[in-house]
């Protein structure tokens, strides 16, 4: 059993915490795990991608290439479209419905595509859209968008709830624990 999961989004959206949670859960379940992150220049509002791979055998390469992802977790609509070629034909995308205009769109040099979700579905992608920002605000802070998404993603994975709760407790500062538990639960309720 090998699972390849990508977390994509815009620098600053909190994808590192999401990959940390996933890595922790997979490790608790006894799998071999590799997580590959991007730091530095790519963080400053640029397109960011994190790879999480786990296996009951051995994980070799820490990266995921085109056609290899079982699951893509996208923090932003355009980023879901950008990385769709990485998805396996039978894979799933869980996407936050937020739209963030990149600088070439802001300056008018490019156009933000319309109706991305519709077009992805039409291409045959198994797509789940989550209003994670609103749910995060409902939980108490827009910053918990990442944890809401992970709640929604948990429905597509085989790990028991307890492991997720352990991972959240490990990775989140104690004073934000309650907020993040709430955010995770709201994501979990999205079917």
């Amino acid at each position, binding site marked *: 059993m090998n699972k390849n999961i990508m977390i994509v989004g*815009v620098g*600053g959206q909190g994808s590192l915490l999401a990959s940390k949670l996933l*890595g*922790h859960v997979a*490790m608790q379940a006894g799998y*071999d*795990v*590799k*997580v*590959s*992150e*991007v*730091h*530095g*220049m*790519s*963080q*400053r*509002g*640029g*397109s960011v991608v994190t790879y999480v791979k786990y296996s009951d055998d051995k*994980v*070799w*390469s*820490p*990266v995921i*290439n*085109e*056609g*290899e992802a079982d699951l893509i977790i996208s923090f932003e609509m*355009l980023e879901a*479209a*950008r990385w*769709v*070629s*990485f*998805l396996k*034909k039978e894979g799933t995308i869980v996407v936050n419905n937020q739209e*963030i*205009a*990149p*600088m*070439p*769109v*802001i*300056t*008018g*040099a*490019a*156009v*933000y*595509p319309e109706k*991305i979700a519709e*077009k*992805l579905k039409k*291409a*045959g*992608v198994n797509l789940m859209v989550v209003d994670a*920002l609103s749910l995060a605000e409902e939980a108490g802070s*827009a910053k918990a968008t990442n944890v809401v998404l992970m709640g929604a993603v948990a429905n597509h994975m085989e790990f028991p709830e307890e492991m997720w709760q352990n991972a959240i407790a490990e990775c989140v500062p104690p004073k934000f624990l309650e907020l993040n538990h709430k955010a995770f639960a709201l994501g979990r309720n999205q079917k």
Partner: protein
Amino acid sequence: MKKLLLGNEAVARGLYEAGVAIVSSYPGTPSTEITEAAAKYPEIYAEWAPNEKVATEVAIGSAIGGKRAFCGMKHVGLNVAADPLFTASYAGVNAGLVIGVADDPGMHSSQNEQDSRHYAIAAKVPMVEPSDSEDACAFTKAAYEISEQFDTPVLLRMSTRISHSQSLVEVGERAELPAKEYVKNPAKYVMMPAFAKAKHVVVEERTAKLTEFAETTELNKIFWNDTKIGVIAAGSTYQYAREVLGDKASYLKLGLVNPLPVQLIRDFAAKVETLYVIEELDDIIETHCRKIGVKVIGKELFPWIGEFSQKLIAEKLFGAKENTFTFPETIPPRPPVLCAGCPHRGLFFVLNQLKVTVSGDIGCYTLGASAPLSAMDTTICMGASVSGLHGFNMARGGDSASKSVAVIGDSTFIHSGITGLINIAYNQGHSTVIILDNSITGMTGHQQNPTTGFTLRGDPTAKVSLEKLCDAVGINRVRVVDPYNLAETRKAIEEELAVEEPSVIISRRPCALLKYVKHKKPLKIVTENCRGCKACLRLGCPAISVVNGKAMIDQTQCVGCGLCADLCKFHAIASEEESK
């Protein structure tokens, strides 16, 4: 116990377990977290040095002084540290010395793609290269054994993919080592010609011994499977190859990448039908194989440029192509940008307006080169903004110095900008240098530096006064501006360009991402006032966009810096209270 660690954290763990006492580094992506993680072990003294040369010399001094020492840097940092490295190779060590260098194939966050293995060859020092976090911890410890056994500094080569990937590491205990005795020994430590000549002989003998060691060390491993295909690889390319070929190939995984073994490679080659050398960047292993008469397939198949992947290797070997999903439209790129509220934005906006030539440098502010700010003409290396501007103005003569500026961050200025400024003052230049003082080393993720007043561990310490420093080197015109104040910033630059003497403008405001920086509430658009003129878009702020002909401010990103409100002639941007 197994822990999920970043490659860089695993190196720090290796330092801890190897009993390392002293770490001195300069931050640089992708190497920075080694030193940050090392600083979390109370048993290790860790510091940020002003640059990689200083850091390396501190580590050399510590090793001579009898404690195991380390310094970490990115690949281009080793250019700065090359001077001490080459002679430390002659002097050797007392306690172990390891220099960590992180290459950046694919240039995720760098200005070039140099292969630091050349330094190991040129400086005649051993180099180890891990392929995952477990290796990173183990090889770091092994590097100290090699250093002390062979009396040499050892290079530890990381790469972006190894540094920034997490994998499982079996962690162990720390070896608490007593300080080695320091014995005065000028023939070993004073590298003047008479002594250095004798030491060069020792270095060559050492290389011969290390080559023998390379034949048998556990750092180099053979994995026998099917022998139709043989692969020689190191670092991340070993992992990619293993993913593609699995048990269909046998592997010689090199952990010691300098010096390379001879007999081990010949024996491996003799038992496989087709032998590939798969290596990112330059053809170092391949060249070695040819030199010892081993026929391999290497760079005629695999690229010299960029980062490899399992897909690239599969395509080169089998021409495999995946049938994948495609999105039916062009997807706009999403390049990195200056953050909302970034203090550099106001400065670059003014420089763009003034249409001056901007000699740029290395840091977040290199993003000032991107549209719509487009306010940078050159960027070469750390410090070159200041020294390069002097050369540019000398070459162009006339009023060149009144139409050009250098921009350099606080940390970069201390790293190697100050020497360029001394050159301007000393050689009677008229250049205008702007120090972008955001009170932190920003690009690499917020490291303290000598201008911030805090150490790596966050303790208060002596703080370099940029004003006094510039004054002391002979710059009579030093002034400070707030880049959130566009009018004041513009006036200062115009005045300093006009005078016929060198000047320094310190553009001072802390990075908007610093935790202690208090933000104002997000600004809002007064829709009825907005004419859709898009003047606010010229700031290149990621929080501002135009939707249906009217400006819109993203409330999750805006920090209320007010630059856009300042620019808007129609009072269409206001705080929440004002907009009511």
